[in-house]
Each structure stands twice: as structure tokens, then as C-alpha cells.
């Protein structure tokens, strides 16, 4: 009853000028809130969800593009520099959105359950980490024993070239990894890809003898970044510092720069994904996903299609890996665990596998849950514990609440719960792909 009432209301708002007003109003409210309350998580959420309203409401395409560009290129950078935590959250959302889009192609489009997706991410990251740092000169030293003052192998500006190299190498690794295993059925494939993910992580952790390629568990640091011209910092400062309230440092500018890079990569990825979705390749993938036997009967080269999906998905992850290595200037095997693979998978599942906006929403939701909501809730509980407050009705002093009940500690529980609840109640995801809506409905037609 309630949901149908909402639907009617939304439909009414969604026509004509009311939609435009809503979008603009949402954005203005969000910006104002974040500007005046720079540390409020709720304000940040209001601003971020304006992207959602931009997506949902019907408006002229050029208007949406203009507003979107304004949001992403002007408002977010200013907000981000005022509170660098928000820029970090948005940067991580972009990185994970790209990863999720890549996994979306493998899981959502082609129906291959890949549980070791983070391996391609690691390949891209270590690629730039090796070539963009001093690691080449450390090859014969045990981890931790290298002298200081070694030269760098490549200049920082080789980063741009390596974005392309990362795509190619990751795609090749995807094909290499995919070739032996894509003949397997879905469940076997899942376990084998899980194995691959672990293999890559163990290799990253252990390739420090006899030749020190990855520097083992200590990771590789420092990694070069592309140079940023001085005039860019000055220009940004002169134009925007009155709005921001304080001068912008080089470090902040670097953060902004990488955010813009991530944005550009996402735009390219979305574009490529969209074109693929609507192409012969995309339809072939749908056929393979729905019924392999029928697809073969139609003359679709099964293994080639699956390999292409793998390669395309892997290349997205590879490019993001290169970006990550440069932005952090530090890489270690701890970033590439099984938890990360499952994290990206849960983003795809939560958002809606096969659906581009859904997957981006999933990435944003999981990242915000993980970084802000869970942590914020835990800090709030912690403040309560250190105060003298009491739960009103049952008179239970917050101080006595066991320190074990700390929400930030139970990230796995959250991921698990998301996966289970989504599968039971809404397997299509938050924004289901239009093709998938009928597929994941239960067979008994409830």
C-alpha cells in the first residue's frame, strides 16, 4: 500500500518542471549542508544521493550532463578539499565502482562467477609499483635490508603510459588465467578463480627470494606519481581558496588530481560497458549466461566469448591498480585479500548484477557503509560508553555495554548479511538490469 502510494507520488513529480526543481533543490541542499557542517556524515549522504536523484528523475539529457559535470568537477572538489575525508571516500567509491563495473562484465554480463577478481587489480598495482619505484635496483636485497638513496627506474610521468600498459597486461593475464579454466562449469569456475586470487596474493607476498620482485609483505614504497605543474596549484588556489577558506596544499591537489583521473577512467569504462551491452558481443554474453547449450547451438564461440569477458573485466581492474599504486605511493599484499574480492562481489550483487547504474550504486553503498556508517556508529557508541548516559526505558548504563559489541569490528558480518538478504529478498539488486528482472524471479511465480 505504502509503496504504491510512493510510486504514484514519484511518477507525478517525475514529469515536467517538478523533476528539474527536485534535482537542483537536492543538490543545493546537499551542498549547503556540507558547506556549513563539514563533518556531518548525514550532510555528506544528502549530497551523494543527489547523484541518485539525477539518475532517477526524468530530465533533458543535456541538463543532466551539465548538472552532473558541475557536481563532479566543481562542487565535489571544493567539498573534498574542505574535508579531505570526503574526497578519500569519493576516490575509493570511484576505484571500487570501476572494479565493480569490471566484475559486472564477468559476473553480470557473462554469468561467470569470479571469486578471485582482485588478482587482476594486484597485477596492475604491482606493475606500476615495480617499474615506477626503486624496486628494480633492490632485486638482490632481502626485504628490509636495502640501502637508501637508490635511483628510480622510470620517471613519474611514465604513469600515463602505464595506464595503457596496465590495461594490456591485465587483459593478457586475464586471457592466460581464463584459458585453462573457462571450460569448467559455474561452481568449479568459482572455486578455481578463488584459488587464482589466493595464488596471486601468495605470489605477491612471497616473490622476495631469490629475486626481490615484490618486496614481500613489507610492500613497495615509495612509488612515483606524475608531476603536477606548479601553476595548477596556484591557479586552483587563486580561484577557489576564498570558497574553501584556506590555501590548498600540494598533497590536496594530488588527491584531487587522482580523483579526476579516477573519474575519467570511470567515464571511459561506463562508455565501453554501455557499448558492449548493446552490441553483438553483449547479446552473445547474455546468451551464454542464460543457456550455454542453446548458445552453442546458435553458433556462438563459447570459450572465445568467455575469454573476452574475462579479458575486458581484467583490464578494468588492471588500470585501477595502476591508479591505486600511484595515488597511495605504497602497495602491499594486504590490499589484495579474499575479503576484497568478496567485497567487490557484494557491491555487484547489492547494486544489481548486469546493471551499470546499479553496480555504481552498490559500490558507493558498500564503501560508505564500510568507511562512514559503520565507523560512525561505532564511534557514537564509543562516545556513549565513555559518557554517563543511560538507555531510558530499561535503565541500562551505556558504560556497561560490552566492548565486544563494537559495530566496526564486524565488517564480515555486514558483508555476509548483505549478500544473504539481497539474495533472499531482492536478487536483482537495488537497481536491477532490465534484462535480469525476469530472470532472477523465482520459478514458482510468486
Amino acid at each position, binding site marked *: 500500500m505504502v509503496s504504491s502510494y510512493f510510486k504514484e507520488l514519484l511518477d507525478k513529480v517525475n514529469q515536467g518542471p517538478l523533476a528539474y526543481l527536485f534535482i537542483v533543490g537536492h543538490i543545493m541542499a546537499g551542498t549547503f549542508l556540507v558547506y556549513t557542517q563539514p563533518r556531518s556524515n548525514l550532510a555528506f549522504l544528502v549530497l551523494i544521493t543527489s547523484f541518485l536523484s539525477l539518475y532517477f528523475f526524468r530530465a533533458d539529457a543535456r541538463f543532466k550532463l551539465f548538472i552532473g559535470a558541475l557536481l563532479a568537477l566543481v562542487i565535489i572538489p571544493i567539498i573534498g578539499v574542505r574535508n579531505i575525508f570526503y574526497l578519500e571516500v569519493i576516490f575509493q567509491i570511484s576505484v571500487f565502482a570501476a572494479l565493480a563495473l569490471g566484475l559486472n562484465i564477468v559476473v553480470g554480463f557473462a554469468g561467470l562467477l569470479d571469486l578471485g577478481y582482485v588478482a587482476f587489480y594486484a597485477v596492475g598495482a604491482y606493475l606500476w609499483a615495480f617499474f615506477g619505484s626503486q624496486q628494480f635496483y633492490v632485486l638482490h636485497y632481502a626485504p628490509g635490508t636495502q640501502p637508501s638513496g637508490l635511483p628510480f627506474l622510470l620517471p613519474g610521468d611514465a604513469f600515463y603510459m602505464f595506464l595503457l600498459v596496465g590495461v594490456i597486461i591485465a587483459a593478457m593475464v586475464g586471457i592466460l588465467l581464463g584459458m585453462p579454466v573457462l571450460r569448467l562449469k559455474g561452481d568449479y569456475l568459482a572455486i578455481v578463480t578463488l584459488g587464482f586470487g589466493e595464488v596471486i596474493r601468495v605470489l605477491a607476498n612471497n616473490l622476495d627470494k631469490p629475486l626481490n620482485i615484490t618486496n614481500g609483505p613489507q610492500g613497495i614504497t615509495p612509488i612515483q606519481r606524475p608531476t603536477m605543474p606548479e601553476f595548477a596549484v596556484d591557479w586552483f588556489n587563486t580561484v577557489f581558496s576564498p570558497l574553501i577558506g584556506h590555501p590548498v596544499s600540494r598533497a590536496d591537489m594530488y588527491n584531487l588530481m587522482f580523483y579526476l583521473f579516477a573519474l575519467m577512467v570511470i567515464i571511459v569504462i561506463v562508455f565501453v560497458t554501455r557499448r558492449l551491452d548493446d552490441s553483438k558481443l553483449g547479446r552473445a554474453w547474455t546468451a551464454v549466461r542464460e543457456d*550455454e547449450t542453446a548458445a552453442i547451438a546458435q553458433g556462438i564461440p563459447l570459450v572465445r566469448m568467455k575469454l573476452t569477458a574475462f579479458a575486458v573485466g581484467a583490464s578494468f581492474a588492471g588500470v585501477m591498480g595502476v591508479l591505486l599504486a600511484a595515488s597511495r605511493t605504497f602497495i602491499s599484499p594486504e590490499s589484495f585479500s579474499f575479503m576484497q574480492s568478496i567485497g567487490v562481489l557484494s557491491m555487484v550483487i547489492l547494486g544489481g548484477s548486469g546493471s551499470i547504474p546499479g553496480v555504481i550504486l552498490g559500490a558507493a553503498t558498500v564503501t560508505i557503509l564500510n568507511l562512514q556508517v559503520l565507523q560512525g556508529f561505532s564511534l557514537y557508541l564509543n562516545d556513549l560508553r565513555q559518557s554517563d548516559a543511560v538507555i531510558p526505558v530499561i535503565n541500562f548504563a551505556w558504560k556497561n555495554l560490552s566492548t565486544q559489541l563494537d559495530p566496526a569490528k564486524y565488517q564480515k558480518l555486514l558483508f555476509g548479511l548483505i549478500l544473504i538478504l539481497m539474495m533472499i529478498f531482492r536478487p536483482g539488486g537495488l537497481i536491477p538490469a532490465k534484462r535480469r528482472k525476469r530472470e532472477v524471479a523465482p520459478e514458482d511465480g510468486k
Partner: protein
Amino acid sequence: MKRFLRSLNVYELIRPIGQLLKFSVGSAAAMSAIVVLLALVLDRTAVGVHLMDKLHVTVFTYTLSNLPQVVIDGLTIGFVYAAIALGYTMVYGVLQFINFAHSEIFAVGAFVGVELLIFLQSAGVLAGASLFMAYAYLLLAILLGMLAAGGLAVAVERIAYRPLRGASRLVPLISAIGVSFLLQDVIRLVEGLTTGQFNRIMPTFGNFDERVIFGKLSMGASKLVLGISIKSIVVIVVAVLMLVCLNYLVNATRVGKAIRAVAQDMPTASLMGINVNRIISLTFLVGGLLGGAAGVLYALKFTRIDPFVGFFPGLKAFTAAVLGGIGNMTGALLGGIILGMLETFAGSYMGIFTAGAAGSEYKDIFAFSILILVLIFRPQGLMGKNVGQKA
């Protein structure tokens, strides 16, 4: 009583023991041969020189003298993997579905058993217990672990898998991953709230830590002692008992026939009057019982458990089940034994064979690589039948 004895299908009791013997001896022989051959070859290379310098023995002598102990160790862990693998394979055989949460079922069994023993220890009962009572307490712990794990397995099936029975293949699989993660943190939460501790340590009691010495092998100047600890013997004996019982259940009872029928063709089985839902619950129960017992045995052998103890053994056991041919019980046995042996051989010999370049850090991915190789050339596993593509 006499009627029960007469109806006992002795063949089905002996057959699995025979199979286990065959697999153990076969895999031990095969791997020993490979390793000895490798040793002979490597002796003539830089590896041989390196070892001679460090330990003053040839690679061949080293390999041969360590072989019996490595085989015993490999078999012990192999049986544990086999016991866990059976849980995976039974569920897959009936539902064509990987129960990712089985690793946490294993962990819960371990925790319940260990908590019981810790409780008994704090009640002062374990310290002065006679040998007979020590074994009785261990048996009690195993039974309790089995029950808890079995109950949890049935509950998980009811809550998280049954609503998804009709959906596409990906959906219950993802739900299973979710359950696995959820249970890991729930175990952690419960342990944290009740005991405040992360690690739980199996108490020492009885004669489990003692060793049975078979003899000494000389290797160069030093002597290697060949023996097996009592707890390893306990692990092997209990595992074999469980495997025999399971085999009997599935192959020689009416209930087992029903399980096999559902595994073969679910719609037809239900047409034949079999209550499919009950059989599925029973399958999960049996798998859970096995996993729980394996958990307590694991805790006995390796002393320390924590909430994440299930992940790696579960993953390896699943690899073993796939290696042997998932859905096939004999395959799970074979896969478990082979995987255990592979892992132990790799861990013990890789460091020496590569002159230190690659050590036991790689033993896990060694096993994985073998799995991938087997699946490339024989996708249905070592003992699996080539099942046609499911639509």
C-alpha cells in the same frame, strides 16, 4: 540382535576400508616415487651441492630418510580433509550446490568440543582422569561437536538455502558465501561475549601428546626418529570409523537409497514417494555431523582454534572434493588423501629441492595448481563421471 547381525551388509563395511587402504598406499607410493626420482636428478645439480654443504647429505639420502615420516603426516591431514570434503560432496551430490558455509560448520563443531573440554578442565575433572575416562571425555566432546554442527547445518539450510531453491545457480552460491562470512563473525561475537578471548586452546589431558616410536633412521651423521603421536592415531581411527559409517549409511540402508535417488534425479525421486525436503535436511545433517567431528579432531591435533579456523581447511577440503570429482563420495576420499599428501610432500621437500628459493610458503598454492592442472585435463575430477551440461 541376531537379526540385526544377519541383516548387516558386511561387504559395505569392508569395502570402504579396502578403498582407503588402496588410496593411501597408492598415493603414498606414487608420490614417493616422484620425489625419489626428482631427488636422484637434483643430486647432480647445484641443489645437491647446496644441500651437501648445509647438511652433509645427498638429496637422495635426505629424501629417503624423511619419506616415512612425511607419508605418515600426509595421511593424517589427508584423512581430516577427507572427512570435511565428504560434507561438501554430499550436499553437492544432492543439490548441485557448493555449501560454502560448511567451513564454518566445521569451526562451530571445533568450538563446541573445545569449550566442553575447557569447561571440564576448569571443573577439575580432566587433570586426574584415568586413561579410559580421558578417551570417554574426548568422545563426549566429539559427539557434542557433531550435534552442534549438524544442527547448525540443518538450520542454515532451512533459513538461507531453502527459500532460494528455485532460483538460478548463482543465487544460492552467493547466499552461501554470505552465510560463511556471517557465521565467522557470529562465532567471534559469541566467543567475545562469553569468554572474551579470540583463541581457544585445547586442554592437555590423557596420553594424546605422547608418541609411538617405530624406530630410528640414520641420515648422514644424525638420526631421525620415526613415530606417530597418539592424537594422530586417534584422528585417523575416528576419521576412518566415520567414513565407514557414512559409506554404510549411503550404500546399505534404505535412507541411503533415498539419498542416492534424490541425488540422481530429484523430480522422479519425489514421484516415487520420497520426501525430498526431509532427505535434503538429512543430507545437510549428516554432512554437518561429519564436519563437526572433523572440527574436534582438528582442534585435538593442532591445539589452537580461532573463529577463522574454518576458512583454509574448508577451502582445501573443497579443493580435495573437486579434485576427486565432486558429488562422488569415493572421489572425496581420494581427493582428501591425495591433497593431504601433496601438501605435506610439497611443504617438506620444496625448500630443499629448490635450494631455499621456494619453501613451504608455496605449499598451499602448489595444491591449488595441481587442482587447476587436473581440471584442465580432466574437468570432472579424478573419479567423476562426465555429467552432461545442466541447462
